[in-house]
């Protein structure tokens, strides 16, 4: 048995209306890689925020190396040797790498010395970084390196990693794991938060599983199967989606050698994109975040316009048309960002239903809105897609991520489109809701619609896609049948590990 580094005893935190953590206790040993496993909303984030001093527990205590540990703010936690790599929200695009690192340190040295130390540490751990580059220009994997290096420079005893692999290619994941194992062998404990079970089984010594704010179990993940872990995490038996064989029809959507500038200064421009999608086909597009997914969706939805003949819907040129005109012709889309893009946060579900459905459902005539019909439509979506909400009058922002996602995807599916384009349909959605959404997409394809799914979740794509392509720096690989592809090949399609030869050498 290892010596305990951090001990949590009876940690409890309640927010109005919800108990985020209820009497959670466990130990993290010195140098141990400890997994914290649970669905969205299971209380993982709140728990690590307490350890990192962002949230004060209502009850319970923590001890760090037998000393009471109650950080009032993150700087206290950092001073005592706790560092954290965030899933997102902790880098500054318009600032350079060295400044970003300095902002996360208690007493940063002058920037020139810091730049040298960043180079030293990043190379020692196989994470090459140039301290003078602007963070906004880095790939997702490189951005994560910035966060990790920021933590390592402070010699942490405990490193908290929140969903670190969601933005990495499989090859980059391997390199990250090598770094983490090296850290662990040098005595740094790691608290690894994830819902990816295979990763946890490959990496972690011990796992604590949370569900509904309570600790369900602490176990050795290598002794359990992924399925057992999943059922502990979800609390019910899961069914993979059904995927009946179906005939493919004619091409419904085609894009021909399209290059398009991004409208975002830190965005990725699309370069020479070509593909076609047939009726009844589910085309999965993989890629690490920031490789042109947003731009691809905007281009297909009509928010970014293209030369008209290069995007064809059922043979007709539609590149020059805006979103409403395309929707009218049968192409609908659901973007990644739910609040503010797919749905207007401060409007009711009824109003949100109207926004995209008024054309196809005839909910407005001569400039007047047919509210009763719109409400009926909203109620239909809520009932059919099992959206948990008191009713269609509720504001979109009041729904949880999974419920709102079911609503916005359901809204588009109910329009009975010929082509649907979705980006990250199950991002931040719990397993049961994700299964509902995937099944709905497959059902739609079964009815003869073309379905294009852009996702960073490879397991999801392998589960539902018939054919497969990857985006890498704005270029799309040739489309291949999904059957028979393995994760290694997909990783290479996604661009493998970017500029990682240094890393390979360093860790060899």
């Amino acid at each position, binding site marked *: 048995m290892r010596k305990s580094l951090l001990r949590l005893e009876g940690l409890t935190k309640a927010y109005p209306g919800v108990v985020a953590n209820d009497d959670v206790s466990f130990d993290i040993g010195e140098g141990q890689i400890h997994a914290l496993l649970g669905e969205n909303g299971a209380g993982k984030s709140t728990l690590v925020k307490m350890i990192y001093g*962002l949230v004060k527990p209502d009850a319970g205590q923590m001890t760090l190396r037998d000393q009471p540990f109650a950080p009032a703010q993150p*700087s206290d936690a950092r001073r005592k040797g706790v560092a954290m790599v965030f899933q997102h*929200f*902790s880098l*500054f695009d318009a*600032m350079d790498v060295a400044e970003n690192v300095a*902002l*996360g340190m208690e007493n*940063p040295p002058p920037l020139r010395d810091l730049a040298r130390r960043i180079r030293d540490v990043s190379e020692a751990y196989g994470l090459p970084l140039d301290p003078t580059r602007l963070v906004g220009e880095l790939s997702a994997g490189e951005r994560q390196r910035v966060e990790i290096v920021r933590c390592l420079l402070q010699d942490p005893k405990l490193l908290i990693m929140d969903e670190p692999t969601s933005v990495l290619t499989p090859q980059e994941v391997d390199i990250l794991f090598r770094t983490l194992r090296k850290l662990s062998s040098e005595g740094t404990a790691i608290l690894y938060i994830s819902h990816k079970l295979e990763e946890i089984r490959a990496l972690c010594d011990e796992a604590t599983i949370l569900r509904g704010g309570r600790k369900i179990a602490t176990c050795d993940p290598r002794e359990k199967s992924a399925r057992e872990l999943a059922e502990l995490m979800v609390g019910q038996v899961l069914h993979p989606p059904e995927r009946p064989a179906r005939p493919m029809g004619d091409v419904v959507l085609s894009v021909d050698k399209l290059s398009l500038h991004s409208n975002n*200064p830190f965005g990725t421009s699309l370069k020479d994109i070509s593909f076609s999608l047939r009726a009844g086909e589910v085309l999965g597009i993989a890629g690490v975040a920031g490789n042109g997914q947003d731009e691809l969706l905007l281009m297909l939805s009509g928010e970014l316009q293209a030369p008209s003949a290069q995007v064809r819907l059922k043979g007709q040129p539609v590149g020059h048309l805006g979103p409403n005109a395309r929707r009218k012709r049968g192409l609908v889309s659901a973007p990644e960002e739910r609040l503010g893009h797919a749905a207007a946060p401060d409007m009711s579900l009824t109003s949100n239903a109207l926004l995209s459905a008024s054309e196809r459902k005839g909910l407005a005539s001569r400039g007047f809105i047919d509210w009763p019909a719109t409400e009926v439509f909203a109620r239909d979506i809520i009932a059919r897609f099992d959206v948990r909400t008191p009713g269609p009058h509720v504001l979109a922002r009041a729904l949880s991520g999974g419920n709102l996602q079911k609503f916005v995807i359901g809204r588009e599916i109910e329009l009975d489109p010929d082509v649907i384009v979705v980006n990250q349909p199950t991002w931040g959605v719990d397993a049961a809701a994700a299964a509902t959404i995937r099944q709905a997409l497959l059902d739609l394809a079964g009815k003869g619609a073309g379905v294009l799914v852009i996702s960073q979740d490879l397991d999801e794509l392998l589960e539902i896609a018939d054919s497969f392509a990857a985006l890498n720096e704005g270029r799309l690989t040739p489309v291949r049948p999904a059957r028979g592809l393995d994760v290694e090949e997909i990783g290479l399609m996604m661009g493998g590990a970017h500029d990682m030869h240094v890393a390979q050498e360093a860790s060899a």
Partner: protein
Amino acid sequence: MILGSINPAVLMAALMVAATPILLAAIGELVVEKAGVLNLGVEGMMIMGACVGFIIAVNTGSPFIGFIGAALGGIALSLLFALLTQALMTNQVASGLALTLFGLGLTALLGQQYVGITPPRTPKLDLGPLSDIPFLGRALFTHDIVVYLTIALVGAVWWFLKYSRAGMILRAVGENHDAAHALGYHVKRVRVLAIMFGGACAGLGGAYLSLIRVPQWTEGMTVGAGWIALALVVFASWRPWRAMAGAYLFGGIVVLQLNLQAAGVRIPVEYLSMSPYLITILVLVIISSGKGRGLNAPGSLNKPFHASS
């Protein structure tokens, strides 16, 4: 030739004086916007500074104390904005506009008995032999101390934003407030301090108008200087030295149109007085047509911050 009656050295000297109030207001607003807050109340804070500074200077007989009062007046008004936008989470654009209207109204009331009075004179700084240099002496070295302090302030703000840790934190808060919060920085505290600095600078800029440039108090005497300062921040793409170059450019246009009027150019006066504002609009259009790239706007500008934890 009518233009011959314009003396370039005098023009240059007048330009520096004309630029100083908008430069002061702009450098303050630049810091506020770098912290991610859009305060459209610059005009209101300027007129507040102009009025309060004037009243205090007249009553104490000291322009120096007047300037301090002006800064405090600007801060007082900016704290109202801070209360509204940072504590009560109101919309920044609406609050800023309200602040301008409120400042214009309040100063019209406060300043009623001060119309037509001459304030105590602010002495020119005696730079000895420097001001005897031909041309340059007349153009650069015949000013009051505020002109030079303003230039020093631009340098100080530039250094602060680029090299100091506090400046880096301020930029971080303006760039991505969620990340700054996650790292444990006090987003609201930083923003309130920045808003106060902006208020002080705008107040000083206003007082420079009423105590030195004009020097007199009249209702609504800032006539849009605050708006020019706001445009200047964008024109300068949030960089202090560019803000100074821009202020001198605008100052030059203002002075030139006055000189042209005096020289009797046959263009209606109204067109000439319009020109600085027209050029402001033109500059904004040219800059924003760059589609955001290179615009260098702080990432969290004008976005409200709700702490989620």
